[in-house]
């Protein structure tokens, strides 16, 4: 009697264990699917093309893009808090207009990354980042502060 009762209890326990492992699997899969959904659904809205000045072609007109290049020496002009300069890269040239905080290390020949739209003539930047070349680390002087 006692043995059989224990045996039955064990059989029931194994069965529920299996069911619970299944439950865990389901919870895990649901969580994994949710994470994947979060990644996929937020992805495309937050990606932009990252180009060099020489790669910026007409096909990107009007689109949000990120462009990297160097500041052409002598091209910087300021009017009030409006800044404009020419970014270059090999053969490419692009006039940039920007209003906002200018990074400390922004100067002639500095490596810069601008984000904004290009209308074929002028690049309207809403973000201006500067890199400091040849040094181990430099950080964004104007980044994403939202």
């Amino acid at each position, binding site marked *: 009697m006692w043995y059989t009762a224990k045996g039955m209890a064990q059989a029931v326990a194994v069965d529920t264990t299996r069911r619970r492992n299944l439950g865990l699997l389901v*919870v895990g899969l649901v*969580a994994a699917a949710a994470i994947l959904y979060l990644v996929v659904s937020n992805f495309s809205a937050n*990606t932009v093309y990252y180009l060099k000045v020489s790669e910026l072609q007409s096909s990107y007109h009007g689109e949000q893009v990120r462009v990297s290049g160097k500041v052409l020496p002598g091209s910087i002009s300021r009017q009030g808090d409006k800044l404009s300069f020419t970014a270059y890269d090999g053969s490419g040239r692009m006039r940039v207009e920007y209003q906002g905080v200018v990074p400390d290390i922004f100067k002639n020949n500095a490596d810069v990354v601008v984000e904004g739209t290009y209308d074929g003539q002028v690049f309207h930047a809403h973000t201006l980042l500067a890199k*400091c070349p040849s040094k*181990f680390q*430099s950080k964004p002087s104007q980044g994403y502060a939202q």
Partner: protein
Amino acid sequence: MIPSDIAFLALVIAFVLAVYGLATGAYGSWLLANSENRLYNKLRGNLLVRSSQHAVFANAFLVTLASGFLFWALFTHDFRIAYVAQTSSRDMSPSYLFTSFWGGQAGSLLFWAWMLTIFSAIAVWHARKNYPELAPYVGSVLLGIEVFFLLLLSFVSNPFERLAVEAVDGQGLNPLLMDPGMRFHPPFLLTGYMSFSIPFAYAIAALLTGRLGKEWLLAIRRWMLIGWLIQGIGLLIGAWWAYHVLGWGGYWGWDPVENVALMPWLTATAFIHSTMVQERRGMLKVWNLGLVVLTFILAIFGTFIVRSGVISSVHAFALSSLGPFFFTFLGIATIFSLGLIFFRLPKLKTEGRFDSLLSKEASFLMNNLLILGITFATFWGTIFPLISEVVRGAKVSVGPPFFKQVNGPLFLLLILLIGFGTLLAWRRSSGHKFIRNLALPAVSGIIVGSLLFLLGVRKFPALLSFSAIVFVFVATCIEFYKAAAARSRNTSEPFAIALVNIVRRNRRRYGGYIVHLAMLLLAVGITASSFYQYESTRTLQKGQSMSVDGYTITSNGLYVIQRPSVQVIYADLSLRHGQDYLGNIRPEKRIYKNWEDQPVTGIAIKTVFPNLDDVYVLISDIDQNGNATIRVFINPMVSLIWWGGVLFVIGTLICAWPQARRSVVRQRSTATEALVNRVGANVQA
């Protein structure tokens, strides 16, 4: 021959010794494992392993010697050495000269290797005493990693390379980097990356020997905790530095270099939790080994990304020749470790089963899933530019909003899970008991959430986050209270002393809870400053004022201080909240003459009590008329992040501190005494 040539020679000898030690260590271990009880093989194996361990110790000495020479060269301005000329200059003060050590590529690699040789020596010495069977393998794996880094230093990126013509003065360090953060942030991160090598070496040793029991778990866990602590401190100092120096009002920008530093820390966090399941229940063995390997791979990957420049980052890195080397090393390490795990699968069978969804094990598993989810999202967003360039031929970059939108909710769930995990018991919790335990914390969370809503906090994610934080806080405090109250009853110690004693008696558990509380502080600071940051920019003439979020800032004019190499322009501003005068703040622009008049922004931050707002003020521009454009951020509760960081260090140290074996015995005997006393009291009654 100049002194630096000796240093270079030391590096080359260290490389040769590492190769030698790897060979003798591997062959010796093999002999020991296959000695078939032949004394001759055992003796030979022992001698070879000894010799290999001596190579580990010798390398710690040799690389320390080389590093000493680099410090010396920096301090004596030995501009015959290219690296010294690139990263330092005569006008640098000694307190910054030593930061030039890790100011460039070759030096930071040398620092990595230096720390590796020292940590390896300590690990081998420790393993020899405590895990003699694993020690030969631990030493060999560490030597294998040394071979790679010393190869780079000797033949690819030599920090002691000489210039053809001695430079008169060096280029120096960019003034932007002349900040106290620069003294600590890079060395902590480099050491952090490096320190994940030791748990990896233990894991490989366990796999090679087939000793996959519990013995090595404790060693791995402690070393992992040490790495986790160092990397965590590195991340926090990095955030602190960004906040106090860069002037964009934040502390974390989801920049590739930040992301790659966060990833191994995250997987280490996952391991620290899931290893407990293996310790208690003998489950998740493959998973845990996988996490140790993954952490190491991500740490090497991080070092590689930082050094190779393959991913454009606002951190600037010269594109270097190191890429292929790192890529090869990563490939070898990955294939080797995964192959080993696969080979040992039969020995890694699980001993237990999950009994219930309502158990600590299940909550740890969910914790791992979430952390790996965050790691995956971060990894994907970080390397996507590379993938898209290969696949589509165009570089696509992923902006910070992606990371915030994906990782934000996952971090929130992770915080909630801390609460559930704390309340759940091992194996299974009874539903009734769980709900009873859940009641007070959950109700507190809901009440505080509602109060905050009434007080005007209307952003739903922020409300959710604050409620979750309160829920976990109350759950954790109850845990402390219950244990201390029970002890106080049993031993008639005063409550405060009982509280200290329960932490002392079970450091791992309560140290862990203290780290959880630290994470809550961080979460409060991050939530508040992410959702309730205010910003305003205005050009102020003398006497004019601007207001942001109830704070008024009035300009008392611009002032100039001339120093030999730098001109400091500061704005004198008085700060008021409503009618209360809170003091003057002075943001500045420092203009460095030796750096083509490069300006450096000096941010003024004032933490306002009691509401813990950081008033964060900087000069963004000075116009021709001498009027400054002032940019103000109101960053609520950011200071809690730094206090959370301090608590994180304390909690982790409590966890990692070796628990003296004797105290375990004493703990048992006092428990027995208490029982005897109680029984005695009952009998008397």
